């Protein structure tokens, strides 16, 4: 499989074999490879701040021996003065070998990929896509469960606006898994996703009661309810405390259940669960480095 020169923009760009290959390379990237990307430069163009994603990409590049340049807030660049994504990319591609772009504007990464002659990785474009998050989620599931096939996965929280849930569900649908969508009706998984998943033969179940399905789950993927995604602030107030998991959950789950969360959390998971063997969200975040190392190496054709 050859990823050299490819862009990483959307979950829709991957086949099942692409995903399997990326997970395989990510596993190899758990080892130290301090010279792999020696002499390579990553341009990290962050049109909105995102500390976690940026630190993870920088760490990945440094650990492979590469270097990073860029900016992390549009206020400090000429972008505020009206410079377009297109022009910014045309400039940055001359200074670097690979670009990561993060922007609140949906479709920015796709446009950046069209502008650039070097590979572009999407570090999140508004409510649209965040493929490296999807890949690290997938990697975490595979790593902790040693398989994906046959798992029962519950998604909890804001399933209507939550892009991580949408992307992960689409990626998981390449395998024969079962999905439970746990949310108040107003925040349920959009019907067109459910339809698409069912057409792919995925067993889907919707409920608003976490305890109804939690006893049979292998993975519980929790997301926060994001204020900025709500058109109406009153709607947000109504749902922000819809779910608050605490140790009472332990009476309703299998011993092997693992709880994931893309972080940051704002109260959906009480800290008292952190020290249980079920919590894997910090490990999940740390897996982001191996996955991003893999992607950087792959698109630069240096994974071997």
């Amino acid at each position, binding site marked *: 499989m050859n990823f050299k020169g490819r862009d990483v923009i959307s979950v829709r760009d991957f086949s099942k074999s692409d995903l399997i290959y990326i997970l395989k390379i990510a596993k190899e990237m758990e080892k130290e490879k301090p010279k792999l990307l020696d002499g390579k430069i990553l341009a990290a163009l962050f049109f909105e701040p995102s500390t976690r994603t940026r630190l993870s990409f920088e760490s990945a590049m440094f650990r492979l021996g590469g270097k990073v340049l860029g900016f992390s807030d549009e206020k400090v660049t000429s972008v505020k003065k009206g410079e377009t*994504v*297109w022009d910014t990319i045309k400039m940055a591609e001359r200074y670097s070998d690979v670009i990561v772009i993060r922007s609140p504007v*949906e*479709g*920015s990464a796709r*446009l950046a990929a069209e502008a650039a002659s070097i590979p572009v990785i999407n570090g999140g474009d508004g409510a649209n*896509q965040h493929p490296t998050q999807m890949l690290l989620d997938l990697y975490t599931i595979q790593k902790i469960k040693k398989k994906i096939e046959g798992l029962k996965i519950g998604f909890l929280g804001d399933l209507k606006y939550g892009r991580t849930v949408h992307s992960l569900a689409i990626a998981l649908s390449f395998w024969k898994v079962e999905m439970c969508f746990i949310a108040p009706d107003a925040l349920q998984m959009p019907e*067109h996703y459910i339809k698409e998943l069912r057409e792919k033969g995925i067993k889907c179940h919707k409920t608003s009661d976490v305890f109804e399905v939690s006893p049979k789950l292998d993975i519980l993927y929790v997301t926060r309810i994001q204020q900025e995604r709500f058109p109406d602030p009153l709607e947000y107030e109504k749902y922000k405390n819809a779910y608050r998991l605490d140790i009472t959950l332990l009476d309703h789950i299998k011993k092997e259940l693992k709880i994931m969360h893309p972080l940051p959390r704002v109260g959906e998971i009480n800290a008292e669960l952190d020290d249980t063997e079920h919590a894997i969200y910090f490990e999940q975040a740390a897996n982001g480095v191996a996955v991003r190392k893999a992607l950087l190496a792959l698109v630069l054709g240096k994974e071997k």
Partner: protein
Amino acid sequence: MKERRIPAIKDGTVIDHIPSRDTFRIIRILNPQEFKYPINLALNLDSKKMDSKGVIKINSRFLTQSEVNKIAILAPNATVSIIKNYKVMEKIQVKLPEELVGVLNCTNPVCITSKEIVISKFKVLREEPLEVKCHYCERVYGKDEVEIKR
């Protein structure tokens, strides 16, 4: 009501087999205010092929390929006939391409196509009922939501 009650035209274009409810939207795409000659329009006609159809007859004007493509978005089963001297010279079955380039506007206010000068691009996911996806923000639109460029 029979279609033949709409006056025949000598030269021009006949658009047939339009879903009744989309007849006015189709007329609007064609910028009829700029036409110099009469347009005859009928809807709620009986049809063997469909529930209820609309017909548009445009005197002394022939459609461009880009106009025919736009018609296909709303009426994938429409037929466009070129009339010369009361005779059908050519019958075109409209066809929706797999990708619509520069034809639709993405109405997502946070889509890059509404911030920068970008030629819009939509993938046709399904013809009937219509479902198209913005190539950039990946938002999916149905027939009643698409905004066709004038």
